């Protein structure tokens, strides 16, 4: 098991010192997603040692753990109780911490059916840019006291606060699963998936790549037998390995240059861009390997109501900013971290620099 160690006093002190010295900090969990976030400069604030499970009761469906706790250990702990983090965060290169997962806000293949990581976050303890330890949300399923700061931390890449601990909703592991495989081209596969998603089938993941559609069904034994018989196809043995390889991007499709992430309305046609596609999330998340510049793919995706972004790899990533929201992003950054101490320049480069200019 992970070391059970409360390192929060050191983290709070580090933020206080950085604040006094006006020296920014780069927060680091286990470093598995460094390729995603771009460079933020500053002295490294490691939280990997702040680890351990604070509270977990399987009959509550809630687990609270320190931010540095490795995801693989949490998975092990949960599966011993027949439970799981259903948002299934990626463990790139087999690693990653709970805090890093929350900061990046990424979810696995079951996302459209089980919900995103942000959906499962119930509460957080953070250290804001003023060095204050703050607790928001809680460890109960329903909580509308105060603004939803917990979910605001998801995907914020540590720019609003250093995560100390996180409470997440967990779910029972399904009693039975089956993955059915169909030989189909990508358009036919999408049409099939869209049709099934409109019906009350126990779907829990879909993926089309290399001319094959894989559909995962999760539920009770009798329910899965009946559903598998209904949709047909060949059953895929050792299917968990396939879905893990999709989640962690170790599937051979992800070899070489990192593909663009194309978010689209799930039933949308494919943007007219040459390249090699992988379609998951019932059509809502598609990956594209292409020579076409990201901005052009994005323009094509936008015409269909979607977006294309770089997923690390390319220089600084292509993360087009929503102009209307930028003003409020800046102000939120200022509200939590007025001196831009935390992960300065990360997420949207403009924020750190401009805030700094303004407050200098």
């Amino acid at each position, binding site marked *: 098991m992970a070391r059970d160690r409360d390192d929060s006093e050191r983290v709070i002190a580090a933020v206080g010192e950085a604040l006094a010295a006006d020296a920014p900090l780069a927060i680091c969990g286990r470093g598995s997603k460094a390729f995603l976030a771009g460079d933020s400069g500053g002295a490294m604030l490691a939280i990997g040692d702040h680890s351990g499970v604070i509270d977990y009761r399987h009959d509550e469906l809630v687990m609270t753990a320190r931010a540095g706790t490795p995801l693989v250990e949490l998975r092990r702990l949960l599966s011993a109780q027949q439970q799981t983090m259903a948002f299934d965060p990626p463990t790139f290169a087999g690693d990653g911490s709970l805090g890093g997962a929350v900061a990046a806000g990424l979810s696995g293949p079951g996302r459209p059916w089980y919900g995103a990581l942000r959906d499962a976050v119930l509460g957080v303890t953070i250290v804001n840019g003023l060095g*204050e330890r703050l607790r928001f949300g809680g460890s109960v399923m*329903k909580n509308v006291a105060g603004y939803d700061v917990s979910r605001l931390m998801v995907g914020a890449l540590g720019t609003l606060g250093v995560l100390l601990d996180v409470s997440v909703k967990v779910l029972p592991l399904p009693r039975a699963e089956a993955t059915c495989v169909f030989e189909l081209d990508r358009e036919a596969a999408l049409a099939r998936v869209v049709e099934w998603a409109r019906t009350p089938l126990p779907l829990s993941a879909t993926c089309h790549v290399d001319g094959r559609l894989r559909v995962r069904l999760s539920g009770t034994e009798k329910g899965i037998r009946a559903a598998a018989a209904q949709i047909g196809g060949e059953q895929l043995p050792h299917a968990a390995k396939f879905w893990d390889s999709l989640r962690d991007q170790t599937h051979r499709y992800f070899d070489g240059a990192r593909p663009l992430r194309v978010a689209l*309305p799930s039933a949308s046609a494919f943007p007219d861009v040459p390249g090699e596609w992988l379609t998951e999330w019932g059509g809502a998340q598609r990956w594209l390997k292409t020579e076409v510049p990201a901005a052009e793919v994005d323009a094509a995706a936008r015409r269909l109501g979607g977006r294309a972004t770089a997923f690390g790899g390319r220089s600084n990533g292509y993360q087009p900013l929503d102009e209307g929201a930028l003003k409020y992003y800046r102000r939120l950054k200022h509200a939590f971290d007025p001196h831009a101490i935390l992960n300065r320049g990360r997420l949207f480069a403009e924020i750190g620099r401009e805030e700094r200019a303004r407050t200098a």
Partner: protein
Amino acid sequence: MSIDPATLKRLQTILPPNCLVTDPRAKKPFETDGLTAVKQMPGVVVLPETVEQVRAILRVCREQRVPVVTRGAGTGLSGGARPQADGVLLGLSKLSRILEIDPDNRIARVEPGVRNLAISDAVAQYGLYYAPDPSSQIACSIGGNVAENSGGVHCLKYGLTVHNVLGLTVQTLEGDELVLGGATLDSPGYDLLALMNGSEGMLGVVTEVTVRLLPVPATKRLVLVAFASLEAAANAVGRIIASGIVPAGLEMMDARAIAAAEAFVGAGYPTDAAAILLCELDGTHDEVDDQCGQVQRLMKSLRATDVRVSSSDAERDRMWLGRKAAFPAVGRLAPDYYCMDGTIPRARLGEVLRAIEKLSGEFELAVANVFHAGDGNLHPLILYDANAPGQLDRAEKMGGRILDLCVAVGGTITGEHGVGVEKLDSMCGQFSAAELEQFHRLKAAFDPAGLMNPGKAIPTLARCAEIGGMHVHRGVVAFPELERF
């Protein structure tokens, strides 16, 4: 106090007469929301018919520095829509069009005034529905649901409003239109979409909502389980969850609520039970078959005194009837009741219910318990008579003590009804001064002038200092006998 004439004049130039309510008799229905103990006549009521009008109204409020309170259908239970005497009450009931239904993408785009249930009605022809179902769903609007992050009976499996809203268009007081999320999943950047849910009209005005639709389950079945003690029922709740089943709904009623519901609608509940559980299972026929068998076996092993399973849709609806009519049924037991909304970790259900019983004796006010047991969301109904001197005051004090208790066991003061004006004092017990300050700074990021729904949701530090004694009385924490975490 009333609205200043210059503001009124400007509103008259941007709105047709039928969108402006100034006559005191016509304004009367807007003086309160579902928390009827709180009343305030608004300065003026505006009922825009277009988003352009909403933007124009906000511009007037900004330039005149007049407070604006947004109101949906007025069914809120925490006074979140209490008007300002010198302010504008912005009613969105006329923005009630369903703009688009897209069955292939399983989404609907609607205006904020669309009623919750009207969405499910409109998409039923495609075999789809909108999952969150607050008990006011026949009347409450989707815009209000977003403001309160409303829940309902099926949250444990299907989530709250925040889990079922994919996109919002929000107008800020500063005149910006924010388009958040949409038909795609998980946009990069700060999750302003999540932030807007449950923000109680403090950050912006929602003018469009994209909701996620789900396929209607093939089968739903209800298991009714009776127990001879509250503890046994509370324990059974945890055991169902621990057994790997996530029921669509898992509700609990105590003896007083059962008796009231029986007398009111005659749903056939066992009136000799100390508590009943209503466990709804949904899914495909085979799945529900599996799960029903599992729940029945488990309940029998936990010495339930009665286990019944609905055998038809009609029977299921009949069995739900008593739960759905529980609030009005309890309303017949006393002239008034005060509905609480604390949420606690499920494992603490038994002891919290016992502590509430004790408080009931101490304050000499009866309590009926009807609640969402599956997600630990309690709705103790404190019975009182507003005309009897001192009873309202006692009910409110007792309510405050129940909320302190919820916080003490690791829960929260509100699971789904919001803070509004009602629970401002209890917020002081749940959050530290630094946390409240962070909330205020967050609010100022969207509304630096502080004109949107002023004074709601987050108490000022001065207020908390004044009532500080309520929570830490001479250094003694409330409920010292309870373990804290």
